[in-house]
């Protein structure tokens, strides 16, 4: 092999690799981008049933119910303007409480209920997810300071 053809060989291998990686990334993006919705978004935008998404807001006061099996849980997530019923089965994060900010991941069923398969844990009790703050600001329910973050 000449010097030139060897160099070509390397360039071709690199190109094939990059092309296949790009193809992988593009196809994976299509199915695996999980969009964030506030309860208002969920009510106003068209959302496909069964599509994975994140729903965030405050756990509405007085909506938390534990079903008889002791594991299934229902509660509503609100942004002040709208409220969406959520059901979840499993152990909740340590810091889950009514009135607290929360993000859940799951999908809508036909009835418009949100079936969460994951309730995202927070690492600090004062912490409010940035997504939730934005959602609350959008619905005019935000009462914190401008920075919003009290991660300390």
């Amino acid at each position, binding site marked *: *092999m000449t*010097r030139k053809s*060897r*160099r070509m*060989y*390397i360039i071709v*291998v*690199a190109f094939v*690799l*990059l092309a296949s*990686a790009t193809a*992988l*990334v593009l*196809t*994976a*993006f299509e*199915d*695996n*981008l*999980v*969009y*964030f919705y506030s309860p208002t978004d969920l009510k106003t935008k068209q959302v496909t049933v069964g599509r994975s998404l*994140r729903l965030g807001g405050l756990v509405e006061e007085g909506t938390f119910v*534990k079903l008889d*099996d*002791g*594991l299934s849980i229902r509660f509503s997530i609100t942004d002040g303007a709208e409220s969406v019923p959520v059901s979840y*089965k*499993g*152990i*909740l994060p*340590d*810091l889950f409480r009514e009135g607290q900010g929360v993000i859940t*991941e799951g999908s809508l069923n036909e009835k418009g209920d949100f079936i969460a398969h994951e309730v995202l*844990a927070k*690492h*600090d*009790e004062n*912490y409010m*997810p*940035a*997504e939730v703050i*934005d959602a609350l600001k959008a619905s005019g329910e935000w009462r914190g300071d401008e*920075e919003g*973050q009290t*991660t*300390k």
Partner: protein
Amino acid sequence: MIAELGQFALIMALLAAISQSILPLIGAERLDSRLMAFGSHASLVQLLFVILAFGCLTQAYIVSDFTLLNVAENSHSTKPLLYKISGVWGNHEGSMLLWVLILALFGAAVAAFGRNLPVTLKARVLAIQAMIGVGFLTFLIFTSNPFTRLLVPPENGQDLNPLLQDPGLAFHPPMLYVGYVGFSVAFSFAIAALIEGKVDAAWARWVRPWTLTAWIFLTGGIALGSWWAYYELGWGGWWFWDPVENVSFMPWLMGTALLHSAVVVEKRNSLKVWTILLAILTFSLSLIGTFIVRSGLLTSVHAFAVNPERGIFILILLAIAIGGSLTLFALKAPALKSGGMFSPISREGGLLLNNLLLSTACATVFLGTLYPLFMEALGGGRVSIGPPFYNKTFIPVMVPLFFLVCIGAYLPWKRADLVGVLKRLKYAGLAALLALLIAWYISDGGPLLAILGLGMATWMLLGTLSEWADRIKLFRAPLAKSWQRAKNLPGSSWGMTLAHGGLAIAIIGMISTTAWKVEDVAVLKPGETLSVAGTDYRFDGVKEITGPNYSAVEGTFNVSQDGVYMATLKPEKRLYTVKRMPTTEAAIYSTFVGDYYAVIGDPDGKGGWTVRIYREPLVTWIWFGCTLMVFGGLVSLADRRLRVGAPADKRKKKKVREAEA
């Protein structure tokens, strides 16, 4: 008084760093040996002052000096001593101070161990190292001063986030930082080489131990972090493709590539430009990691505070460091004399492929991690990218790499005979096939991809072992002779075998625990038993206990299989009294074949408790494999030929080379 001393020490360190970043450069340009030697002295002075500052902050934490804002916000007088000390870096300001300390440590180490470096190269390396120091010291002093006093000191502190009060996490940040920051040396060497316009085998030999040191610590730090996530968060997972995990993983991927490409520069005087670029990119990714985590762009346990001013400051630092180094690269790299081209089927060809695959894999992680940030910046709404994305992009890129690892290790330099290599690997191939069938049988034809993955990992492990066996002529020469050969193998060769084998073992653990994990959640009353994957967990009730700074409910589980007692698990649910923050402490019974993992949740108000049980097959193999990788790195580092500062004995080296061939 001590805090003011710390503040003063920081400013002195900055002054030392500024002079260190200018004078040696001028000295190297004018060949003024006094100015060049200044770099070494300055780096020591800088280190001493940073140590002093760090010591002052540590002292403030140990004696709980709540007149310091930093201590008041992150410590408490009842906290155990270990966490008082780890609290020093369990917050933004302190962790940046630790960053600067390690940076200064590496700078001084180059000065101390680099006695046989060419004086101009050494002076330039130290100057570049100091420039990074100037950037971060400025950042520390002007935006993140750990020594800020409070006018009205509180009675007691606000305590450290309880999740961070854990032995694993006490050592995770320092290790990770040594890894991150260690790559700064490779970066400084790369920039110095660009200024000098010269990259040769000697350069690669000087860079390699530093890269290796950083890699060892980064590997250890990542493994420790994942272990912590596994036992502390109580979700039974060990890797979540969380952005903060990814930002430590990207420098690891690039650093691994750098480690391999530096070998090619050293042995074949080729791939020089690429290696320089890798060194720049690896450290740039470390910087980006620091930026992402510290700027609060991502919210997680690592995001101590969100302060836009700091974010912009780090962004500017980042732009200067990365933009500047890449510009220099673009200007100077074409002038580097390119080495010889080589045959695709050869050791160097294999290493190049390794580099291409690792950088492609790193690019997919980079996209997945930063895409949500770009989307948001462009007003495209908030999105998140989870594990499914990485399963579909990162893993397909890595699979060919894992498959090729042991073939690559067999290839000789310059030109190789692929068929011959494959012939020597036939037993490994057959054994891997056998392992595949066994896995298929045991798992009842379980997930096909996992079974194939296990076959691949076994192939990687056995292929690596078979290469080692061939090297020492195991079973083909008398055992005593094989033993002799094994003893004479160079450390770097042992290191390769250990690291590749460790990786294979870790992959076996990762695949098994991901594919065959069993999880069950139930509400149990005392005396009731939950059966998970053939093991019985009898719940024996709860009791209240108190720790130094928390109160807890402790559940007791009697674990047995077919009536034979195995272990008692005592998971806790703690409430840290100062922060009023609950945490989950999982209880784990680890065995060679798998972990039995129990978590206790909330009472249901009717005498029952929510419990969660995991059965995690082979999960400990992950960390055992990582430990082997770290060990392999250490063995390789101990290799005489690489030892920092050891003058190369030419005759002896030649002999070793001959023995190797």
